[in-house]
């Protein structure tokens, strides 16, 4: 365990658009570089190859988007303690690639568990456009009525059969065309949105998945590790509302002469 004098900083960020095709490891590398560029004074591990003490929450599968990803980092004990936490979010967003935006930053109380331990379930929004609505409703009902739902997947190079039904806490159509909401448990064995999509019979076609919330449960109530409001009209909320065109970001016209336009996706 790291020493108690290392304060822990928690950051919440979103991942939208083209960058959803980067992996969990890729995102970790982006963060390391951005934190170094931002001059955030991190604590480092001891030993042969010291590395910054950063821990990420549940891995987001490659190809999925998210409104709420998290990381915790340990601050250098020698750090003077005057890092203005409020200013970190916009400063780091500017240093991170397009599609990753920091929404909140806060110091974590001593004694709080790690993200991996604490997060019990996640909400997902799934989009299945090629199945007609009525049939989709039937498939959802069939899944919910099944006592057991076996999916075959690979673990440590071996094919295994897992029952994912207990981990599907909720599954419903939202009303928007092809849009579903799912709540999936993370313990004891997590279920991936791809498993649910496969169970819905859409594994071969491009379907979209977005993690909308991660939930911690304590004493019968559930809350997010760092809650944020999504004020209507902001770029990301807007985007989430119109996820049929999710890679569009507001205010990112290409620079006429190309001098590093931040947000210069082509649309």
């Amino acid at each position, binding site marked *: 365990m790291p020493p108690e004098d290392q304060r822990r900083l928690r950051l919440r960020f979103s991942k939208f658009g*083209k*960058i959803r*095709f*980067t*992996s969990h*490891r*890729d995102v970790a*590398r*982006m963060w*390391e*570089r*951005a*934190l*170094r*560029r931002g001059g955030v004074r991190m604590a*480092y591990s001891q030993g*042969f*190859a*010291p590395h910054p003490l950063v821990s990420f929450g549940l891995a987001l599968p*490659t*190809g999925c988007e998210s409104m709420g990803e998290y990381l915790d980092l340990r601050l250098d004990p020698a750090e003077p303690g005057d890092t203005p936490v409020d200013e970190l979010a916009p400063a780091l967003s500017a*240093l991170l*690639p*397009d*599609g990753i935006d920091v929404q909140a930053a806060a110091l974590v109380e001593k004694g709080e568990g790690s993200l991996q331990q604490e997060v019990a379930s996640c909400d997902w929004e799934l989009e299945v456009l090629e199945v007609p609505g009525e049939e989709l409703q039937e498939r959802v009902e069939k899944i919910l009525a099944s006592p057991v739902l076996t999916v075959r997947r690979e673990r440590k190079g071996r094919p295994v059969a897992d029952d994912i039904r207990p981990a599907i806490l909720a599954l419903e159509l939202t009303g928007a065309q092809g849009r579903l909401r799912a709540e999936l448990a993370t313990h004891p064995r997590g279920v991936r949105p791809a498993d649910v999509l496969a169970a819905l019979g859409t594994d071969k076609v*491009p*379907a979209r998945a977005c993690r909308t919330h991660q939930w911690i449960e304590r004493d019968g109530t559930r809350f997010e590790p760092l809650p944020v409001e999504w004020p209507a009209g902001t770029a990301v909320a807007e985007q989430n509302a119109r996820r049929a065109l999710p*890679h569009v970001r507001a205010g990112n016209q*290409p*620079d*006429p*002469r*190309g*001098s*590093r*336009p931040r947000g*210069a*996706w*082509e*649309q």
Partner: protein
Amino acid sequence: MDSLWPQIERLLPGVSKPARYIGGEQGALCPEHGPGRVAWLLLYPDTYEIGLPNQGLQILYEILNERPDAVAERAYAPWVDMEAAMRAAGVPLFSVEQHLPAAAFDVLAFNLAAELVYTNVLNLIDLAGVPLHTGDRGPADALVLAGGHCAFNPEPLADFVDAFVMGDGEEVVGEINEVVAAWLAGDRGERLDLLRSLAGVEGVYVPALYTASYEDGRLVGTQPNDPAAPAEVTKRTVADLADWPYPARPLVPLTEVVHDRLNVEVFRGCTRGCRFCQAGMITRPVRERPAAQVRELVNRGLEWTGHDEVALTSLSTADFSGIEDTVRDIVDEPSHGGRVSVSLPSLRVDAFTVGTAAQIQKVRRTGLTFAPEGGTWRMRTVINKLITEEDLYGAVDAAFSQGWRRVKLYFLIGLPTERDEDVRGIAELGARCTEIGRRYHKSVTVVASVGGFVPKAHTPFQWFGQDTAAELERKVALLRAEARGAKGLTIRWHDPAASVAEGLASRGDRRTGAVIERVWRAGGTFQEWSERFDLGLWESALEAEGLSLSEVCHRERDQSEALPWDHISAGLHRDFLWGDWQDALAGAGVEDCRWTPCYDCGACTGFGVEHVVASAVPPAGGSQGTGQDLRQGDRIPVRLVGRAS
């Protein structure tokens, strides 16, 4: 032209490592295309993770995008699964920045860093929707260019590439842009007019304007067939690297790539004179970047990228004047917070001083790599890699005593005059290195990595008859048997069959193009990937074309024979190369002309350029351990950095 992203996006969930197709790197530019701007698609004919770090491509990318009359984007070879998905969906080759189709570009410019990628070049031209053969292209088709080290024998790709560029690209890329811009402004006249104009640019070779003649199935010469084409095309050389501090904003990828670090080129060219080394021959003379500019590029680059590792790159970085001071300045720089590590690829074995090792070690000890190349002193005199055993053991002792536990040694087998004792010598050297290591640590690893030698154009070994795959395999087996039982010593080797295919693409003449085309048509892409390489494809293609490996690869040439690259000049006199070949066979070494009188290889005198170095005296141990007298001569073409010249 519209972005292909909506179509590409549908393919990505089904392919491996989709992040290599999304672009969005820090430093990526989305330039606005339009009239009056030549649109370049810079292509690296291998996967994104291999191609992205390529410095040559990044340099040209910045230089072109700074011009008001040019725009440049990048593309890489889609992996096999993505290519299949693209072809099935009718998606052509696209740029990673704005996902524009290749058809939106006026120029497709390939970086040729290795010969085995040639089938990928053909595949990318095809995926771009451009006719494969130069003769089938019309005014509306993109101009296909290629540059890089492999361009120095352009003939195997002569059927597919409209023009090759020899040597440093920084200056010539602008001249080419002007020629293309003028042709586009003139409403794309005859394609031949464009080719003729390009042939007038120094360093540009237009194969269609030359005819290769054969007698009795053997090349006898390559001559211009058009008055616009010079009899000999000579390479371009940037006189002073200080004029070109690029890349200034290196690309930082979103996903994992090879060499995932900041790279700063500290000098170009090398005059160590290793006879097997094409890079050392074709990039002469030595041009150092001023140390102050190196420091600035390092500091700015680390700040810009957020990397915590910088590689100081060159063909032999330990030869950089004042390398110890430069490394110390980087490691001690307060703004780096003591967290930056420096890596020095291609270390010289002899002069790797304990001081430099200790400085790098302060931060992080990566593995150390040395390249003695030959297993015995006799072998090393033949290849002019004049490292004594004492040099090697001294360097390895320094490494292990400084705390490293892993040392990698590079060797070549299949060298001219090689005997079995030279091969066995590799195991002896390796075993001895593990013994040295165990004086300091309980357990150490020494990896001897062995490659099959491939003779290259414009080197003293260009006349040599390459070993057959069977002979290389025999030598590998010999070496493995010899190394058996040596604790801590691991032998790794490259596929001998791949060395032979590389030899074919390296020294083949114009007729090799048909072979490459057959291999590509048979599905032979990504041939430099061991899991994809298939010698059978090459052998059957050779047979179908009436050519043979014994003729192209395994046959020793004599002095009078016409070579496929005789009309291309890297500045080196043919007589110099032949003399050096004879010296090699006689086991005679040659000194480094940075610090000794000129022996007139031709590289400086032919171009009116000279070595640019900060110190006219060799570094400690710089004699390569031969005890040669390296006193400064009086006819050295050396210009000192930072002084009036």
